[in-house]
């Protein structure tokens, strides 16, 4: 069932060979083919703009009012590229190796190599679009370093790199919309994928303003709908980010890869009250210059500036001398949790550690620090009321990214023929832990370079009969969608959608978050179906389906989270090893690091939907490591 279609030959020639073997579509014929792209973030906008420019007719869908709102915009720190501008030992191979190792050997080598290979083209492409990357006085591009690596390969635009890259892709997309090659469908949310003769041939959407359900047919469907961290309710994701598109595709037969691989980002502003609706990320780039510490004494309530140097524990620098504060995210998060569990956490709830800039300000001067991180310090002050130039920041880990997602082959096609998946929505490239500044890289690699090569190949290689939305498959899918919406509206219970979401989030965070145990996961697996049952019997949505109804939108998304959460726990339960962000307390090294079990778990778990209240079936794609030999990760 799992045919990864990895080209043969040496790793550095695989992508070239793949492209050489591809079939092409004559430029005059391209406009006869239509492509649906769902999502207009980095991967979606880049793919839609590029395929549109190639001459295909692209229909791009977004639930936002404009593509520029996609959550890619909130990425702060930067984007990696193996340019080696610093001459500090970087190369495509080095970026490849860092990413495989950073992902704790649970990613496919061929995919990661391709990512490293095209990383250089991404920077070229973005610069020519006018993305205002940071520059040095000579006019050349500036770099900085990020977690989990020992070279400076991260390109950045102050603390708003995601915004600037997204605007670049957005502008390219707008140009194609003006040229008529891309038709943009705003405020339009995907509610189902339509299969005709076993191939993905269209989607069903709901117009979020009028509530109208529409069918759209095309030759290919591309999903670039982002990750599912909002399953935790409190995460750094935007409020509307959801799993509906990938989950409905999963229910239609697309396998879901490694759903339990989620990333908990170490540097977020700690939770302050029960009303809090989301967590705010402080870019990892801060760890370049900030030093992480907690008091040596437990329950030390002194103000941080009153704690003398010898009573501070710079635990990352002490435990990991060679990487120091720049260890990968999973390691940094786990260590923060550990010191807080020991009672050495800081702040009102003891759930926080300090990130201190005093040394950096002393060494570089206030002006330089302000220039590098000014906007982040501002965000911090606005939320907490503290001035991080004088008092250390308080940070704590928070759900941030999901490495898991729909299983795809080397061409980024899911197990449904004609359904491609790009960006965070797919499972590829990052293994069990994503390195900092690699999400932007992957989103753009998929959108600008991979999908625009593999999607045309699919179109050229397969004889696709024309389909219309009057086909019975479309009618049936639309009727199913309508039923589900009517069912949500008809429950007429007492609890608001948000109250269910909060409760679900707490279950998943407690038992499938930073530390996972057999008992905890079994508890969650008992609790989630109960909550789902209550949801379908006690939900209250005010209003109708034929109007702009934000409660209905939420409830619909939560109904999918309630199913996905269960699969996450099932996946976490079967993987009894620890790897990357997946930390099973039963599997640790003597010094408390994640202990992999390569003999039994060097595979990707791809889950098949078997129906609600049925156990999903697992398919295993074995992972082999020819270029980066398997070894225990060490950042000491």
């Amino acid at each position, binding site marked *: 069932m799992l045919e990864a279609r990895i080209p043969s030959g040496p790793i550095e020639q695989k992508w070239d060979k793949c492209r050489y073997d591809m079939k092409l579509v004559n430029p005059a014929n391209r406009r006869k083919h239509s492509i649906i792209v769902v999502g207009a973030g980095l991967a979606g906008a880049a793919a839609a703009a590029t395929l549109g420019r190639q001459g295909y007719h692209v229909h791009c869908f977004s639930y*936002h009012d404009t593509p520029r709102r996609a959550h890619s915009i*909130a990425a702060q720190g930067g984007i990696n590229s193996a340019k080696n501008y610093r001459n500090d030992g970087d190369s495509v191979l080095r970026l490849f190796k860092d990413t495989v190792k950073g992902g704790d050997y649970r990613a496919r080598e061929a995919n990661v190599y391709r990512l490293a290979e095209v990383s250089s083209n991404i920077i070229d492409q973005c610069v*020519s679009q*006018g993305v205002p990357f940071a520059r040095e006085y000579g006019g050349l591009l500036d770099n900085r370093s990020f977690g989990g690596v020992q070279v400076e390969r991260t390109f950045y635009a102050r603390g708003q790199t995601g915004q600037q890259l997204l605007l670049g892709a957005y502008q390219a997309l707008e140009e194609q919309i003006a040229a008529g090659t891309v038709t943009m469908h705003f405020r339009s949310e995907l509610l189902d994928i339509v299969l005709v003769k076993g191939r993905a041939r269209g989607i069903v959407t709901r117009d979020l303003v009028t509530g109208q359900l529409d069918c759209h047919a095309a030759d290919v469907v591309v999903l670039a709908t982002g990750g599912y961290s909002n399953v935790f309710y409190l995460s750094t994701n935007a409020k509307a980010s959801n799993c509906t598109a990938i989950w409905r595709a999963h229910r239609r037969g697309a396998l879901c890869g490694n759903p339990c691989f989620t990333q908990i980002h170490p540097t977020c502003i700690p939770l302050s009250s029960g009303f809090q609706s989301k967590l705010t990320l402080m870019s990892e780039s801060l760890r370049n210059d900030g030093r992480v510490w907690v008091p040596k004494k437990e329950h030390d309530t002194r103000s941080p500036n009153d704690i003398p140097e010898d009573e501070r524990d710079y635990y990352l620098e002490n435990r990991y001398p060679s990487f120091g504060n720049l260890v990968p995210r999973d390691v940094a998060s786990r260590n923060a949790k550990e010191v807080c569990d020991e009672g050495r956490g800081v702040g009102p709830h003891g759930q926080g550690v300090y990130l201190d800039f005093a040394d950096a300000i002393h060494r570089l001067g206030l002006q330089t620090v302000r220039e590098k991180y000014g906007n982040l310090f501002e965000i911090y002050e*606005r939320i907490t009321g503290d001035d991080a130039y004088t008092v250390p920041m308080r940070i704590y880990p928070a759900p941030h990214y999901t490495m898991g997602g729909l299983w795809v082959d080397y061409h980024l096609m899911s197990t449904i023929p004609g359904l491609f998946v790009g960006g965070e929505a797919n499972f590829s490239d990052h293994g069990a832990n994503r390195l900092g500044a690699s999400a932007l890289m992957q989103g753009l690699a998929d959108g*600008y370079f991979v999908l625009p090569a593999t999607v045309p190949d699919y179109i050229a290689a397969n004889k696709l009969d024309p389909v219309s939305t009057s086909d019975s498959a479309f009618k049936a899918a639309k009727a199913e969608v309508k039923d589900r919406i009517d069912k949500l509206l008809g429950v007429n219970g007492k609890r608001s959608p948000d109250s269910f979401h909060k409760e679900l989030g707490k279950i998943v965070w407690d038992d499938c978050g930073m530390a996972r145990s057999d008992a905890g996961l079994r508890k969650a697996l008992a609790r989630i179906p109960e909550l789902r049952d209550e949801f379908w019997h006690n939900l209250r949505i*005010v209003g109708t389906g034929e109007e702009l109804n934000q409660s209905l939108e939420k409830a619909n998304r939560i109904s999918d989270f309630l199913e996905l959460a269960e699969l996450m726990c099932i996946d976490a339960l079967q993987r009894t090893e620890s790897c990357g962000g997946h930390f099973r307390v039963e599997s640790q090294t003597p010094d408390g690091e994640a202990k992999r079990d390569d003999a039994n778990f060097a595979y990707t778990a791809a889950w098949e939907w078997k129906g609600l209240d049925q156990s999903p079936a697992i398919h295993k794609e074995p992972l082999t490591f020819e270029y980066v030999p398997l070894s225990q990760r060490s950042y000491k």
Partner: protein
Amino acid sequence: MTFTLKVWRQHSADEPGRFVSYQVKNVTPDMSFLEMLDALNEDLISRQEPPVAFEHDCREGICGSCGFLINGVAHGGQRGTTVCQLAMRFFKNGDALTLEPWRARAFPVIRDLIVNRSAFDRIIQAGGFISAPTGTAPAANAILVPKEDADTAFDAAACIGCGACVAACPNASAMLFTSAKITHLNSLPQGQPQRDQRTLSMVAEMRNELFGSCTNHGECEAVCPKRIPLEFIGKMNRDLMRAAWHWHREPLVIPSLVQLPSAEDSHEQFHEEVRIHEEDQAHVEAESPEPAATRR
């Protein structure tokens, strides 16, 4: 803390709206303004009343989704802050707060506090881009950008497209928004080839969308959550003069002829058509004061 909210309720674009008053209790100073509205909505749902519709997404001040007027001030009045980042500690216990959607002819109300800002996208479509098809890019460091220019471009590119500038302007002008994008792209060496046509097209589209003109009130700069300076409007006007002053020769082909669909659809003809069409478009945009209108 307790607040009295007077909220604009409007069911849809075609129905009239009105203010409705609500009491919100148990507000903590650390709550953001939107979290306070979340609490109000939970309360409304429990009373079987439709919750207040408002737009929001990232809640960290970067996506540009959120925004409404609080007591007549866009985003509520804290300098450089979107309403999602505005903490309730900014207000006094017992304050009466009036919430209204952006008011501008170009931004029709969709529901309650949500307006349609698609006009901004159409301004970008008119020329707010640098044409760089994927795959043809020169090596990144082949283009030197002086740090000062890169910084100016970045300051302008920080715009989040929220529309506060339009809502604050007595003329509902979109000049701060438009000038920010023009300054971003026109400051960079990569943006030079399309500089004149970009400026002319975007300014024309701004007018077509029924936005007003700048009369130097400076309200836009005061409410801009990203602190885009008024100075960029001056830059835009200078670029507009420059574009008008530049002489572009007449196009060689008559626009109306090449835009007709060709009778046959052969490969070569298609290419020919595209080539002429593109060449011709470039001239039209550079030449005519209303290129966007021509195009649509």
